[in-house]
């Protein structure tokens, strides 16, 4: 009993500190949620009412009525969906070639891919806008998606995943007469599923949250994804804090749920980025 008591006492400061930090990182979310659900009263009341007395979804409905949140949602789904699909395909193809195939110039290609990591990319932003303008893709989702498909991180992550496939497995398939394409589709891709899942979720969260690039490419609010639309909402309803809070909650909810469900893969993607 003494031992248990001592253990608890020694752990108390640690848990106390962690709880304070957790409150610090999550408080803005909790406050926003409470504000969006509360029905009336001073939103800045102190101490904050994190459990509203009469919770209501009225503000959510008002936000959805006043601003095309549903449309923004589908725009986000569309943009993120294509970005994820494209990134996975492009990174898998390139990663496979670099990991498995033997060809002249492979070292140079890999160096070029890695070089994009150290290229001074601040210029990209403005020239990419010029490129997208010249391709007549401003105000289109294609214009938003296209530059996002290129990244050394994805190629690198999948190259590493393919390298872990034992040579015997590939050789066996080759002896059975599989073409390179069949090898890629039937052997390599299924074995790289965990890495594909990690990259997919990582890309999805990143794209869902991208703000600046879509805000630059898209001029027509009808095409906005949620991350851009929500600021549009807060600009229009600056005085109606509860409605803006409701719109904000609706904006974060999908990606937050996804993150909570797929945390494991997400962290693995981050791990892959370090190694």
């Amino acid at each position, binding site marked *: 009993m003494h031992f248990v008591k001592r253990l608890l006492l020694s752990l108390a400061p640690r848990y106390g500190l962690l709880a304070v930090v957790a409150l610090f990182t999550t408080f803005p979310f909790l406050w926003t949620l409470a504000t969006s659900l509360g029905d009336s009263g001073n939103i800045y009341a102190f101490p904050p009412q994190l459990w509203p007395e009469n919770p209501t979804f009225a503000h959510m409905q008002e936000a959805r009525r006043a601003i095309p949140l549903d449309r923004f949602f589908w725009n986000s789904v569309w943009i993120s969906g294509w970005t994820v699909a494209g990134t996975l395909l*492009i990174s898998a193809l390139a990663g496979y070639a670099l990991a498995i195939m033997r060809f002249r110039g492979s070292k140079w290609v890999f160096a070029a891919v890695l070089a994009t990591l*150290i*290229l*001074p990319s601040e210029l990209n932003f403005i*020239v990419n806008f010029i490129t997208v303008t010249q391709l007549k893709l401003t105000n289109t989702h294609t214009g938003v998606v296209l530059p996002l*498909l290129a990244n050394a991180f994805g190629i690198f992550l999948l190259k590493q995943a393919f390298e872990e496939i034992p040579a015997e497995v590939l050789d066996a398939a080759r002896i059975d007469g599989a073409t390179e394409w069949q090898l890629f589709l039937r052997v390599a891709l299924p074995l790289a599923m965990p890495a594909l899942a990690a990259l997919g979720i990582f890309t999805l969260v990143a794209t869902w949250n991208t703000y600046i690039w879509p805000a630059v490419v898209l001029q027509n609010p009808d095409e906005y994804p949620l*991350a851009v639309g929500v600021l549009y909402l807060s600009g229009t309803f600056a005085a109606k804090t509860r409605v803006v809070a409701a719109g904000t909650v609706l904006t974060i909810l999908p990606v937050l749920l996804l993150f909570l469900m797929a945390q494991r893969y997400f962290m693995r993607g*981050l791990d892959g980025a370090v190694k």
Partner: protein
Amino acid sequence: MSKKSLRQDLSAYLFLAPALIILFLFSFWPVGLGAVLAFTRVDIFNLAQSEWVGLDNFRTLFEDPVFIGSIKNTLLYLLVVPVIQIAALALAVLVNAQLPAMKLFRTAFFVPVVTSVSVVGIMWGWMYNEDGMLNQVLLWLRLVDAPVGWLSDERIALFSVMFVTFWRGLGYYMVLYIAGLQAVPQEVEEAAILDGANRWQRFWRITVPMLKPTLLLCTLLSTLAAMKAFEEVVVMTGGGPIGSTYTLAFYAYDMGFRAFDFSRALAASLVVSLIGFVLAWVNFRFFRPDHR
């Protein structure tokens, strides 16, 4: 035989084509073209019409007090780096133990990382409001006697924005440090315990040296991020009040997409780029993947 290897080469490049085309178009090309266009008066609708003006853009840049202010603010912004690294490492150590509820804490710390900057800007706008939570708490604790203008006082606004950068990045670096901590071999720790090293000695003599690669990586990543910081500025202050929150990258963004002065925007981003490049190059020297 050579025919076969030619076919091999060809199919490999077919696999690589989509990646290479996009990387070229949106990574290599903009860097090259941008570096050239920074010396011209850009016509974004007809690049061929861009007129060579030499160093003119840079001259106007360095004559602009707002730009000079941005340099100062960007340097100040680097203060975030040590603060965030120490806090993230401390959190990682605390949360890396085999104790109940640690996963829950990690998740709570990571949630800001997966939130879009626009939402972050809105939420912190409320926190920083004159009647907002931060002022309420400080007034209640009697640490201030009047509400602080977190985003409206030009002496404070930049620090308020930096604080949000800290809040957003904490969980991210914590996860990287956890990965680093888990790579520290258990046997070394145990040997040190047998030798009678206390917890503090173990941390300084074993954990920190073993974490060196992670420490360097995280420090450089966050230095680069602080160097380029501007999204928080866009969504929270728009550079104000009185231009006090302009960072270099925000200046470039602002010149391009609000003032539509693409020439000056490109010149400004070339300056950020060069500084970023030096930092990234150092980063790359330390962490070349085939080095580990």
